[in-house]
């Protein structure tokens, strides 16, 4: 069937959607091109106001002295930001965000990639495995938080399971553990971190709060399946002939993976890093339902600080300043990515 024929056969069908007659006549008066623009105007205006307008408004609040229930837009310059970067809780939050992002993104990438490359070997029941690894994505972070709070409760959960299965009770405090580990930059572990490009984790002033790893575990449980799906799609897109050719040249499976699959999967890795990274910069729900601030703010995050200081403490200007810092950190990550994705699409 040729194209015109296809269009004709569609035209003669009874329409599924009924539109009012005046709407249909409109195009006799105004050109369709103008109507097209008119159709997306409501959405564009909504986004313009509710995203860009509101960001501008928040920015205005962040340079004001609004510190009570009553709005006060008196301009104070960057005072709120300056105070923020001298605020003990906010500095801890930044540290927590860095630690959380590194370990959460790292764990998701490794687990997601391993699962995907295992599933990519003609596995019987692949669909079932895939569904099991991905299902946490479908539930709310609040549900995840409630479940994992009990799973990592010191008197029960995983500690107790270890006792039941043999190794003995772990007696570990999980998210109640106030320990902050300082890694000496000169130590062997510090040097190892340095060689991995994670030298800042071994800064003498930069502690790693152990309680935060409980949140990392819960978040990884929820998000690693997503990375698996991305990698699996990426692996399936690699032409089999390419791998065959390498094998014919005598490469073993590990070499095929390292020399062919991994380099070709670099865009997937980048996508996963950006998506997970920007999520970890704004993580909120999971912390609220699982640990709240934690011992000595060990699991506190900027989003929680912002929420509490704004809506419970009425420090609106400070809350707005935190939110603008969060926005800037996300933008640095996302804007180049969006630009890159859309440019790549345009070139196709």
């Amino acid at each position, binding site marked *: 069937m040729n194209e015109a024929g296809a269009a004709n056969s569609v035209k003669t069908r009874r329409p599924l959607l009924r539109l009012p007659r005046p*709407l249909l006549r409109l195009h006799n008066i105004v050109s369709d091109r103008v109507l097209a623009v008119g159709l997306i105007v409501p959405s564009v205006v909504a986004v313009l106001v509710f995203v860009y307008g509101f960001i501008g408004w928040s920015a205005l609040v962040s340079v004001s002295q609004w510190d009570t229930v009553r709005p006060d837009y008196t301009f104070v310059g960057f005072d709120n930001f300056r105070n923020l970067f001298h605020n003990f809780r906010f500095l801890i939050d930044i540290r927590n965000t860095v630690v959380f992002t590194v370990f959460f993104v790292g764990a998701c990438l490794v687990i997601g990639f391993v699962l995907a490359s295992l599933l990519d*070997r003609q596995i019987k029941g692949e669909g079932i495995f895939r569904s099991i690894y991905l299902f946490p994505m*479908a539930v709310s972070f609040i*549900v995840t938080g*409630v479940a994992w709070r009990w799973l990592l409760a010191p008197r029960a959960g995983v500690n107790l399971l270890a006792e039941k299965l043999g190794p003995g009770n772990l007696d570990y405090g999980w998210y109640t553990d106030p320990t902050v580990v300082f890694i000496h930059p000169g130590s062997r572990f510090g040097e190892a971190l340095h060689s991995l490009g994670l030298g800042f984790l071994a800064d003498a002033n930069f502690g790693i709060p152990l309680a935060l790893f409980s949140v990392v575990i819960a978040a990884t449980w929820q998000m690693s399946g997503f990375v698996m799906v991305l990698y699996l799609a990426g692996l399936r897109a690699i032409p089999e002939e390419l791998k065959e050719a390498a094998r014919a040249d005598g490469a073993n499976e590990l070499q095929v993976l390292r020399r062919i699959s991994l380099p070709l999967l670099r865009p997937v890795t980048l996508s996963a890093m950006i998506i997970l990274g920007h999520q970890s910069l704004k993580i909120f*729900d999971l912390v*609220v339902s699982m640990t709240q601030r934690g011992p000595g703010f060990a699991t506190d995050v900027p989003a929680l600080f912002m*929420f509490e200081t704004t809506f419970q403490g009425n420090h609106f200007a400070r*809350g707005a300043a935190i939110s603008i810092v969060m926005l800037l950190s996300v933008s640095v990550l996302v804007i180049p990515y*969006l630009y890159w994705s859309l440019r790549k699409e345009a070139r196709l």
Partner: protein
Amino acid sequence: MSIAWSRIAIYTVLVAVALLYLMPIYVLLVTGLKSFREVGLEEMWDLPSGLHFDSFRQAFRALDSNLANSFRMVIPATIISCLLGSINGYVLTKWRFRGSDVLFFFLLFGMFIPYQSILIPLVKTLQALHVYGSLWGLVVTHVIYGIPITTLIFRNYYTNIPTELVEAARIDGASIFGIYRRILFPLSLPGFVVVAIWQFTSIWNDFLFAATVTSNPTIQPVTVALNNLAGSFIVEWNVQMAGALIAAIPTLVIYVFLGRFFIRGLMAGAMRS
């Protein structure tokens, strides 16, 4: 022989990881099904002596009105989101105009922002419009902040519908509405399913907007109510677990039956489709 062993090793790893991923669901389920006499923390991993629905009944009593609120919010928000996304996707693929790609870029950015950065103005605006603290306020919020992702998914979807089809219909004198009604819309069902599932899941699971926009417990969606339930020291933990499972059931059911559409939404959200 060594190949057989490596196959066994692969399956062992896959099964072990699967069990690990199912562990939270196991605990939620067995705890929820225990009678109140056997819910000590020490028995956390033990199977229940029989099927007791007391915890579920009690959790449901605590959450039933909030579940209803969630449905009353999610259903209209999802429907409106789908329609808006579909129209936007149609225009941005079949009626492109100068600057439409730039516009799309600015729309998309809205999907990634931390919502904290619009929260204070949002609350003030909803208050001024007298919809603060109402379910309609939440519906409007979710529809607006859903515009980027719904537009993105429909735009990807309509890109695959040949533009020649639209051109041919235009030559035949069909209008912008006629083409949508007779060509695009009838072909849109899979797109609508992907967007509907995506919006249903993310709006149902949302906590930040729900917690900020609704302070009144009688109109709070289930995520907020569950968080309150779980944060309460007088609610037994088995009821909390049952409540968590109840709150997860609607999205889990959708996932089980329509998972492949859910995955398409995920891929689109990561800008990979």
